[in-house]
């Protein structure tokens, strides 16, 4: 039963993933991504990782995708058609080709890594409830605290950089207006 469910969910996640790339409207892309995340969360549940499943939905579906939607809705609705048209010729552009090469490369590397089990998995027992939660927390804030903090600093740096870039552009516009 669980195995069948796993394959069905995996297939659904992949289909939703295809939907993200192939959907004509960006709105549908985001909603497909939402479906994909949901399938992943249920797969985590099947594996016994309740906390991870809830965190997946809370963080990705509840916060990050909402921000995506926010940005998409800020784009003018009239431009939606233009974006959709461009996505038809998506595979022709050079950047898309480079991106595809990188994606395939990453997939190959990931597959190789997975098949050789080259990475050390975090030793968290798939426990339920607070025991599993405690184990995850001790690993995250104990052994892996440096990586965890480094990731947060990286994110912070990205935010600061984006704000700096946006501010500079706006100041440039203002100066241009005055001159």
């Amino acid at each position, binding site marked *: 039963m669980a195995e069948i469910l796993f394959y069905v969910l995996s297939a659904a996640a992949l289909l939703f993933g295809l939907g993200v790339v192939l959907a004509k409207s960006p*709105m549908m892309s985001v*909603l497909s991504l*939402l479906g994909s995340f949901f399938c992943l969360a249920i797969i985590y549940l099947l594996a016994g990782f*309740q*906390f991870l499943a*809830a*965190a997946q*939905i*809370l963080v990705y*579906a*509840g*916060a990050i995708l*909402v*921000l995506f*939607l*926010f940005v998409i*809705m*800020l784009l003018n*609705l009239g431009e939606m058609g233009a974006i959709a048209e461009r996505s038809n010729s998506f595979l022709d552009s050079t950047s898309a080709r480079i991106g595809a090469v990188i994606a395939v490369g990453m997939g190959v590397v990931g597959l190789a890594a997975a098949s050789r089990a080259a990475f050390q998995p975090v030793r968290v027992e798939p426990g*339920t*409830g*607070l025991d599993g*939660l405690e184990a995850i927390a001790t690993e995250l804030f104990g052994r892996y605290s440096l990586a965890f903090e480094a990731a947060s600093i990286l994110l912070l740096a990205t935010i600061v950089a984006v704000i700096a870039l946006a501010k500079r552009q706006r100041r440039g516009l203002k100066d241009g207006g005055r001159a």
Partner: protein
Amino acid sequence: MSPELLEIVVWIVKVHVIFLGMVGVAAITTLAERKVSAWMQYRHGPTRVGPQGLLQPLADGVKFIFKESLVPDGANKWMFRFAPALAAGPAMLTVAVIPFGPDVTLFGVTTPFSIVDLDIGLMYILAIGGLSVYGVIVGGWASNSKYSLLGGLRASAQMVSYELSMILAILSVVAISGSLDLREVVMQQKTLGEWNILYQPVAFLLFLIAAFAETNRHPFDFAECEPELVSGFHTEYSAMRFALFALGEYCAMVVMSSVAVALWFGGFSVPFMPEAHWTLGILAFCAKVTCFLFFFLWVRWTLPRFRFDQLMNLGWKVMLPIALVHLFITGAVISFAPQLKSLWNGLVNGAS
């Protein structure tokens, strides 16, 4: 009857009782909203349907079912139809983990009075409850109307902003009780002196404010905001689809009230009666939730609406820093509790 079969039967009964009870309460709240507003404005409110207008929700329901359900020409048809379900579904799903009462013994069967006691109940409520924003966003977008779109935009910004403060406020309580299981948190507050409101009043205030924003209630109902946006994200909706949005909002109110009661006000524990019968426990929970629901209505008909930039400033520049500092202090106090205790003892002994 075999134990497995019995378990399934008990479970089905519980799901029906709790779910239908929830929808019933949501329907009654719509009537309460009109009655309370009338009472506050020196009017009568609905009086024609049934005694004192008590059957008004039923009449409303019939009206919603028989009205024409319009789909605007320019709308994205499928998304437009899907959005109300997205709005109402998550709010109803979160009811599953709320502990409405202690162990119930009926016909010789003893079972906890909640659909399921999840170890990560609070995470589940936050995760699933956070999804109801999609209904508002997708509904606002699919309507293909500028008012709906603006309403959806506001809802997405507002809900993401206040979700942070809400999660941090709840985390403080989780830190002192050491559990994400709502029933476990309730069990730790058996007597009046153990209620978390005495230890975490700031977290409760933060949660309360964020709850108003999360449920899109006045004074934070910018997603509908009649003077500016006609009626916001559901401008184009009519009949049952509109009713589903309203139902989702009222269900979310009930869930938020239940979470507040369970986390801060002892849940189903009866004040001064630690060994109360389970019926009293359920009644106590309902009474506490009713107080909160009344508070929601009271605020709606008392306070004026904020401005949207004020809402954002409050969320990011006031609530979030306070919530962060509060969580930090809570964590510090918990970590250094033994040292603080010995320090306190030393001070008391030194003074005497």
